[in-house]
C-alpha cells in the first residue's frame, strides 16, 4: 500500500470527504436541534485543502477569535478532531443552551459557559464521528473535550502541527448551521498516517 500523502490527493478522495462532511455535519445539526429544541438548517459543507501559509486567512483572519474544541480520537483509527466555532456563534449557542441564563453580550466565557461550550463541542464532534464510524464500520472512540478560546491561527497551529508531520497542507471542512442566525463552524479531522489508509480502505476509495 502506497503511503498516503495529502499533497497529492485526488478528486475522488475529496468527494468522499465532502460526503462524510455532509453526513457528519447533518447529524451534528440534528443533535444541535434536539439539544436546543429548535430547527437547525445546514448548508452544504466546503472541503478545503489549505497550504499552511493560507491557514490564517481561512476563517476570517488569523486573529479572528474562535472557540476551539479538541478531542483525541482512538479505537480503530488514531488522531484527533477539532471543532472551531466563531466567538459570536459560540455565544449564541451557549446562551440558547443555557436558556437565557447566560449574561449575553460580554467578553470571553465564564466557567458555566465554558462547560456548556465543551458539551456543545462534544455533541457536535460525537455526531460527526458517529457518522464516520457507521460509514466505515470502524470503531471510533473520542476523549473528553478540551476547550481554548483564542486567535484562530494559534488554535489552528495544533492540528497544523499534526498535519505538518506528514505534509504541508491542512484539510478542513467548513460547515454553516443556520438557526435564527448563521453559525459558522469548522471541522478538522486529523488521523495519523496509518489511519488515513484504514479510513480510505474502509470507504472503498483505496484498495
Amino acid at each position, binding site marked *: 500500500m502506497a503511503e498516503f500523502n495529502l499533497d497529492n490527493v485526488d478528486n475522488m478522495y475529496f468527494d468522499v470527504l465532502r460526503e462524510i462532511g455532509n453526513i457528519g455535519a447533518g447529524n451534528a445539526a440534528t443533535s444541535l436541534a434536539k439539544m436546543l429544541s429548535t430547527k437547525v438548517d445546514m448548508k452544504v459543507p466546503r472541503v478545503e485543502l489549505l497550504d499552511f501559509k493560507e491557514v490564517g486567512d481561512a476563517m476570517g483572519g488569523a486573529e479572528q477569535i474562535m472557540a476551539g474544541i479538541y478531542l483525541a480520537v482512538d479505537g480503530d483509527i488514531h488522531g484527533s478532531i477539532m471543532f472551531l466555532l466563531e466567538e459570536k456563534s459560540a455565544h449564541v449557542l451557549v446562551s440558547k443552551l443555557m436558556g437565557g441564563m447566560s449574561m449575553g453580550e460580554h467578553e470571553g466565557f465564564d466557567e458555566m459557559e465554558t462547560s456548556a461550550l465543551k458539551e456543545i463541542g462534544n455533541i457536535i464532534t460525537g455526531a460527526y464521528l458517529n457518522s464516520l464510524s457507521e460509514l466505515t464500520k470502524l470503531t471510533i472512540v473520542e476523549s473528553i473535550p478540551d476547550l481554548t478560546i483564542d486567535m484562530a*491561527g494559534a488554535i489552528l497551529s495544533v492540528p497544523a502541527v499534526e498535519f505538518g508531520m506528514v505534509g504541508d497542507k491542512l484539510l478542513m471542512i467548513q460547515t454553516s448551521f443556520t438557526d435564527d442566525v448563521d453559525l459558522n463552524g469548522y471541522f478538522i479531522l486529523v488521523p495519523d498516517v496509518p489511519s488515513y489508509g484504514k479510513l480510505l480502505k474502509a470507504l472503498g476509495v483505496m484498495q
Partner: protein
Amino acid sequence: MSELIKVGMADLKLCPKDQGITTLGLGSCVGVALVDKITRQGGLAHVMLPDSTAIRNNTNVAKFADTGVAELVRQMEAVGAKRSRMVAKIAGGAQMFAFQNNSALVKVGERNVQAVKAKLREFGIPILAEDTGLNFGRTVEFFPATGDYVIKAVGKPVKTI
C-alpha cells in the same frame, strides 16, 4: 507607516530596515526575529516543528526550527547581513490545549523554543529577549530599525520586548 510584511505559518521573509514585519496567531509555533545590528536588515521566521531530521517530508525548510533559522540566516547574509552582528528575539511556543494525545507532539511548543535556541546558539546569535510558553496565542510585529518586537495576545495588554 507602510503596511507590514506578512509571514504565514511555516514561512519566513526578510524585512528591510525601514519597514515592519508580522506574523499572526502564533500558537505552539515560534516567531524568530533576527536583525543585523549595523545594517538593520531584519527577518522573521514562523516555525512549527522542532526537528527536520525527525520527519521524512521535510521539503519546506521554513517549517522546522533547525532549517528555518538556518535559512533565515542564509537569506539575510545574501543581502549583506553578517552573522556575527545578528541578534534575535523570539516569541510563541505556547501549549494551546492542556492535553495533546499524540506523543510526538507533547510539549511541541516548548520543544520548538528549545530547538530555536539551540540553533541560534550554534550560530552564535544572542537572544536579547523572549516571550514564550504559557497557554495563549500571540501576534507579533517586528521593526528592524528599532529592534522592537511587539506582542499582542487576546485579553492582554500589548507588550514590547
